[in-house]
């Protein structure tokens, strides 16, 4: 089965990104494919490399980056949602005249078309949200 995943709530504030992470891990372990993980609404905040959670807590962004690297996952952050919330990659920071970028390794910023395309291509699209 080919899964497309939507994460639509922010990390720590909401369990959605944790549940999505656990689901993706379990699906991959069972031999399923995850074609893309699309971060929308406050879910885009998962992809900042500047979060500093307490050391005894789970490291949500690092978990996703590691899982993405291990399985070559396509972790996509919605550009429209990201711009509102201050998530930038190097190109976008330059283009918008901002003095910093903050996107974490393994994530990429792209458009909403990637969400629709994922829905078309995946056998199942699953939303983790509120």
């Amino acid at each position, binding site marked *: 089965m080919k899964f497309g995943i939507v994460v639509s709530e922010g990390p720590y504030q909401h369990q959605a990104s944790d549940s999505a992470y656990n689901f993706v891990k379990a699906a991959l372990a069972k031999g399923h494919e995850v074609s893309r993980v699309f971060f929308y609404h406050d879910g885009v905040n998962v992809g900042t490399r500047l979060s500093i959670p307490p050391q005894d807590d789970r490291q949500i962004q690092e978990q996703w980056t590691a899982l993405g690297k291990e399985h070559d996952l396509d972790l996509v952050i919605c550009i429209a949602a990201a711009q509102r919330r201050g998530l930038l990659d190097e190109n976008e920071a330059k283009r918008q005249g901002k003095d910093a970028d903050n996107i974490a390794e393994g994530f990429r910023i792209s458009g*909403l078309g990637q969400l629709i395309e994922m829905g*078309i291509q995946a056998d199942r699209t699953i939303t983790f949200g509120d």
Partner: protein
Amino acid sequence: MSETIKKFLYVNRKAPYGTIYAQESLEVVLIGAAFDQDVSLAFLDDGVFQLTKGQDTKEIGLKNFSATYRALGDYEVTKLYVEKESLEERGLTLDDLQNIEYEDEDDDYAEKSSIRLISRAEMAEVMADQDVVLSF
């Protein structure tokens, strides 16, 4: 873009301005319209407030995007399912909603309402009939 045509349902459950869900849902719908899929929208729970007429956001400093729903027909988004029970539970009737119409090209471009009032049980059937359900 793709030869596959899937049935997409965008489920709108939240009031228009308390959170950003309604606005960012519309953004997905508008982008998604370019993909030539079979698109429907569902409005239930507080989501029915998204379609009410006479919205005025001046005092809260937010953008009033309610007119966008009336433009959906131009994007060939013509199926807006509204749950009857959700309207009733909030003291609303169809008269409280905007007129949202589309031109039916198969019927000499007659103007028809995009709003389809259905029961909760029928909404379950609409949902069961979809390939992709995105919930906002």
